[in-house]
């Protein structure tokens, strides 16, 4: 195409007539008519806003659902612990050796303890006889550290006026080393012991159980008093001079039985009190590379859980609605293609 021809087209550019200019000028000064509602609706804007709105709604729903209801987090935690204790008491009672009657037990399973205060949530109640048992699993770096930690654990028990019940130490030249240490420390100092022991390595897990021994001790005391009264009564009857020889022999036998029973009861009470004086701590040390359980932040975890559920629900919705959306897009593309074809045909005809 020659440049001359193109210039001719450019130079012959149509110019709007004065009448048209007047018409357009009048249009420009008129107040624009308000568009109908449907004309003002812009799907493109909705597409931009909708995802943001959906995300905000989901976050808000998660936050609202995660708000504490009628109590603090501590209260909720206490409720959970109480529920746990009911189950644990059923399991613990048959295994009890010193307490024949029913007992109440509190037990905490804490896969992710709070560092520095591993048993802060559960502590023995002062003034009551309780059996306190704790298990800790700690990871140490290597065999050298295993040895040092084992010694330290024993020293901790002794420094708190406790003692070492047993130690099993296994440190092979190759492979995973480990140690199992059973310590007894005064119950009043068990928190200190746990805090110090938890510093010996990385806490992998922790289990704390508290069994109430006060009621069994009270029962034993009552039985001792009853037996003592029985002995006193038998002794008083034996002091009588009017007893027949046969009757005296029977009373003496009953007195001997009562004395034996009193001895047994006193022994049991002493054992129960001794059991309550010291807490048992089992410490498991290992060099195995086991990742500690993630620290749980209750409120954030709740939010994460809710968001995960929302994400799952959203995925379901997408799976269900996906084909329809795809079909809609295909229809839209088809209609657009058809419209453009029609426009092209229209322009070719004119």
């Amino acid at each position, binding site marked *: 195409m020659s440049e001359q021809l193109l210039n001719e087209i450019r130079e*012959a550019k*149509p110019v709007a007539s004065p009448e048209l200019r007047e018409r357009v000028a009048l*249009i*420009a*000064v008129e107040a*624009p*008519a308000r568009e109908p509602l449907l004309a003002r609706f812009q799907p493109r804007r909705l597409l931009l806003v909708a995802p943001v709105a959906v995300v905000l709604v989901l976050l808000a729903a998660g936050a609202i659902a995660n708000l504490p209801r009628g109590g603090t987090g501590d209260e909720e935690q206490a409720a959970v612990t109480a529920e746990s204790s009911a189950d644990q008491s059923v399991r613990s009672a048959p295994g009890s050796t010193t307490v024949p009657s029913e007992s109440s037990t509190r037990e905490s399973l804490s896969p992710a303890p709070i560092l520095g205060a591993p048993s802060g949530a559960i502590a023995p109640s002062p003034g009551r006889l309780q059996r306190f048992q704790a298990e800790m699993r700690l990871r140490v770096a290597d065999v050298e550290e295993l040895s040092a930690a084992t010694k330290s654990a024993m020293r901790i028990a002794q420094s708190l006026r406790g003692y070492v019940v047993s130690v099993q130490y296994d440190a092979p030249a190759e492979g995973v080393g480990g140690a199992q240490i059973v310590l007894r420390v005064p119950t009043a100092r068990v928190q200190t012991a746990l805090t110090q022991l938890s510093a010996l390595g990385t806490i992998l897990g922790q289990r704390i159980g508290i069994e109430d021994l006060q009621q069994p001790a009270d029962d034993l005391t009552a039985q001792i008093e009853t037996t003592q009264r029985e002995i006193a009564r038998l002794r008083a009857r034996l002091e009588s001079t009017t007893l027949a020889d046969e009757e005296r022999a029977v009373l003496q036998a009953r007195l001997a039985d009562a004395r034996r029973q009193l001895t047994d009861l006193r022994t049991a009470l002493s054992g129960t009190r001794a059991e309550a004086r010291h807490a048992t701590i089992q410490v498991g040390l290992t060099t195995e590379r086991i990742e500690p359980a993630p620290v749980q932040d209750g409120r954030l975890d709740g939010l994460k859980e809710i968001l995960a559920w929302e994400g799952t629900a959203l995925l379901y919705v997408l799976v269900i609605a996906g084909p329809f959306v795809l079909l809609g897009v295909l229809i839209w593309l088809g209609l657009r293609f058809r419209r453009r074809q029609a*426009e*092209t045909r229209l322009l070719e*005809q004119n």
Partner: protein
Amino acid sequence: MTLPARRTPALSASFAATAEAHLDDVYGYLVYLTRDRMLAEDLAAETFEKALRLWKRFDPRRGSARTWLCQIARTTALDWFRAEERRRRREEAVARPDVAETDMPEGLSPELEGALASLSAGEREVIALRILLELDGEEAARVLGIRPTAVSTRLSRALTKLEERMIVHV
């Protein structure tokens, strides 16, 4: 001629200035598209009416005002073509206007005018956009709703055809 003072301050002010600046472009484009100067005037007026209603939506970041106005002008012209087609069908008198009946711009040589008039509206509009209004490929593509490469192809074919028709007329 300058536009009179407007009643709605900022909105009308900017629109009036834009309308005046691009009136010739819109009109020229419509003349090429319709081959009818009177019709082009009517469609140009309709285009600016629509543009005024949509002026709030105009976003300069998405394209120039000239491109935006040409898009509206194209839609207006297509609506007119559709309406005209329906009317012709109703009347069962499909009578495509003869080349001789066209009203192309003044100043063109008879050969060029005849050759332009013999092109389809689609071919004329790409010549109008790229040659007459001197829009770049991107802007023309935006108006036509196609890709810039397709604009180049369409322009090349239209100019080749125009040249062939010129030879025939000569």
